[in-house]
């Protein structure tokens, strides 16, 4: 059964690939949505009946010497939960795309890519070994490249697609190196074998001790996650990936792309748990990312960019949780975040769709009356993101903050709180700018309308989930998700671990809950004061008062410029040197060789006179010479 979870999107991909162009739009969309829907149903069954965690069904794929590499599907509580989230969000996004992409001339190609994307991600979260995971990992990267650059005729989209591919590739290199090192040290790609080898005393390579190797490998693997999950300093691709169609953003940000990095760290958690240095790195990178992205999001003008930076920031939270050893909370936040972030993008898409492609927040306003469903679902998602009781984001974010404080990471807790304040502020800034007040652009406003049912139904479903998803991990129910996820400990999925190894859990603390709630409400209050209906010039006044700080945030801490002037320029110089070397040294050697051959041929051509008698004379002369030699030396040889 597990095979069919990624299997159905693959079948849908094959159908749309082969005959998609000849099918009508509803048929293409119908096939794709049905396939992911079946995957979702199967994932739900798997979620409820995960069986023995770590069970593998696989085929023999490669045999190299003594190494047998399988290709298969592994089930566990973590994998089942991931497959559930991925297939659920994907189904809704695919349905929504039917309305958003209607009339696009490459409609079937779009669905083709989406199906492949969903297939790759489902394959990734069910992979049975590291090599297989890496293959799906790269396929996810490829699909995001294709989809971000879907409107490749726009130069920005083509550039953004390239950027997303190249930046994540830097991380992928790290992951690949990590996998190779693990294989060298343990002789296997299987997770259980790798984990067991890492815990055995004889682990290590000739030049590196066991603990050093574990730290190195964990950090290399984390580098892969940094690229994929847009952590500082490789986060720059994600906001640019906004050039793709908005449903794609929803998919990338919620389910299929950035979740992969967090999943990878969670999947390899037993390895991270063995290295304190690696965990600390993860936590601090997460913290820096969360705060930095939240600060950037404060001032962005593009509606999708604000949400994109909020994704980066929330991914930072997840990494902080994982780095602090709170494995279950990191995954739980991934779970709730998937719903409200997908919803934020779908509502943003609905706004953009209604305004005929306008993404500038300062041309919106007063949309609450025109787009009621979008307004209420956006509000639900915004409250969830801000972490307001009792919506989903509150439970997961508060669990992370609790884990940070209780786990002795005081500074990171402060970072988390500041981030929470900024988060509440920027998302409600967006809400007030888009939905409250009066329209800033009458022409756009007059045209605005709600999308069809295919667009509103996914919004409502996700709205319900954004409100309720957190309730699956409250003290009232006895933390079902926590217990579910920790059920993987000690099984062959997390070979050789105990529950304490793979994650700490902490009881809720009412005082800390109230603190984070107050902080979030303060953020919302500030946003209302600055951007609410009667705010007038307060925002502009604040911006000019903040002066350089405002500009730093607006220009995204100049990171793009820094990369441009350092890495990109260095790369260009290197390319230029290589180009010169190729053009003038290597090419001239090759040219010389070709010239020499040509000259030799030209010389020999003179001998080819076509005069049979000349040839005969030469042959006869040769014969005479041979005879002369034979006569003088008594033999030709």
């Amino acid at each position, binding site marked *: 059964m597990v095979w069919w979870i990624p299997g159905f999107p693959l079948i849908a991909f094959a159908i749309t690939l082969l005959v998609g162009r000849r099918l009508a739009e509803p048929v293409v969309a119908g096939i794709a949505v049905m396939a992911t829907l079946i995957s979702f149903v199967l994932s739900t069954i798997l979620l409820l009946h995960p069986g023995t965690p770590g069970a593998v069904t696989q085929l023999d794929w490669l045999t190299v010497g003594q190494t047998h590499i399988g290709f298969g599907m592994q089930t566990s509580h973590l994998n089942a939960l991931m497959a559930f989230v991925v297939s659920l969000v994907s189904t809704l996004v695919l349905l929504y795309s039917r309305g958003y992409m209607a009339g696009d001339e490459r409609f079937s190609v779009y669905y083709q890519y989406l199906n492949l994307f969903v297939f790759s991600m489902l394959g990734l979260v069910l992979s049975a070994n590291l090599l297989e995971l890496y293959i799906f990992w790269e396929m996810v990267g490829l699909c995001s490249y294709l989809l971000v650059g879907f409107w490749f005729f726009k130069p920005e989209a083509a550039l953004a697609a390239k950027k997303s591919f190249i930046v994540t590739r830097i991380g992928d290199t790290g992951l690949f190196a990590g996998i190779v090192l693990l294989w060298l040290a343990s002789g296997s790609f299987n997770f259980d074998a790798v984990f067991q080898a890492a815990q055995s005393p004889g682990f290590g390579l000739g030049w590196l001790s066991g603990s050093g190797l574990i730290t190195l490998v964990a950090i290399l693997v984390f580098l892969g996650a940094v690229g994929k999950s847009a952590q500082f300093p490789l986060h720059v691709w994600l906001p640019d990936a906004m050039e793709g169609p908005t449903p794609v953003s929803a998919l990338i940000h919620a389910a299929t792309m950035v979740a992969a990095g967090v999943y990878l760290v969670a999947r390899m958690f037993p390895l991270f748990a063995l290295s304190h240095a690696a965990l600390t790195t993860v936590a601090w990178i997460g913290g820096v990312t969360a705060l930095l992205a939240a600060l950037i999001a404060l001032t962005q003008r593009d509606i999708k960019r604000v949400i994109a930076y909020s994704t980066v920031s929330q991914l930072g939270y997840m990494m902080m949780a994982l780095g602090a050893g709170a494995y279950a909370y990191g995954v739980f936040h991934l779970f709730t975040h998937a719903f409200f972030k997908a919803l934020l993008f779908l509502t943003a898409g609905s706004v953009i769709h209604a305004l005929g492609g306008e993404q500038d927040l300062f041309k919106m306003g007063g949309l609450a009356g025109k787009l009621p469903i979008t307004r209420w679902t956006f509000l639900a998602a915004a409250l969830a993101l801000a972490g307001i009781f009792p919506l989903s984001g509150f439970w997961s974010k508060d669990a992370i903050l609790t884990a940070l404080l209780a786990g002795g990471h005081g500074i990171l807790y402060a970072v988390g709180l500041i981030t929470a304040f900024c988060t509440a502020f920027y998302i409600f800034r967006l809400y007030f700018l888009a939905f409250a007040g009066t329209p800033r652009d009458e022409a756009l406003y007059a045209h605005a309308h709600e999308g069809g049912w295919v667009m509103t139904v996914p919004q409502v479903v996700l709205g319900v989930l954004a409100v309720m998803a957190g309730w699956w991990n409250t003290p009232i129910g006895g933390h079902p998700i926590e217990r579910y996820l920790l059920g993987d400990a000690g099984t062959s999925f997390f070979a050789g671990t105990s529950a304490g190894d793979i994650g700490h859990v902490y009881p809720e603390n009412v005082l800390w809950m109230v603190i984070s709630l107050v902080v979030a409400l303060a953020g919302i209050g500030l946003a209302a004061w600055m951007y609410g209906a009667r705010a007038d010039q307060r925002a502009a006044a604040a911006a000019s008062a903040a002066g350089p700080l405002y500009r730093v945030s607006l220009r995204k801490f100049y990171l793009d410029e820094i990369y441009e002037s350092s890495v990109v320029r260095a790369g260009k110089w290197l390319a230029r040197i290589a180009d010169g070397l190729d053009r003038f040294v290597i090419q001239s050697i090759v040219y010389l060789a070709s010239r020499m051959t040509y000259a030799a041929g030209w010389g020999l051509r003179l001998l*080819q006179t*076509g005069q049979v*008698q000349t040839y005969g*004379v030469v042959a*006869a002369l040769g014969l005479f010479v041979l005879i002369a030699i034979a006569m003088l030396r008594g033999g030709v040889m």
Partner: protein
Amino acid sequence: MGGTGAIQIPTGSILALGAILFCIGLYGALTKRNLIMVLVSIELMLNAANVNLVAFSRLGVSPNLNGQIFSLFTITVAAAEIAVGLALLLAVFRVRKTTEVRDLDLHRR
């Protein structure tokens, strides 16, 4: 063998005749401008070989009839060869309107 009254010609002379004949033929084949003359020269070279075959069949280390039979073969084959050669010559002449060897330099291209 070596019947009475027959004139005894030394082997060397016969071989010299063959060699001279061959050289005349080779010279002709390599220098004559006319294709017909080239064919005639080739015939000379074949006959030089025949002289040698016959000479050795009579005066060689172990004289027997093989050499003479060989020379009969050679004469037959030479006849067939000259027929084919003349046919080719006619065909060439029809197409190129010449029998000059120098003009037949299609190999050059």
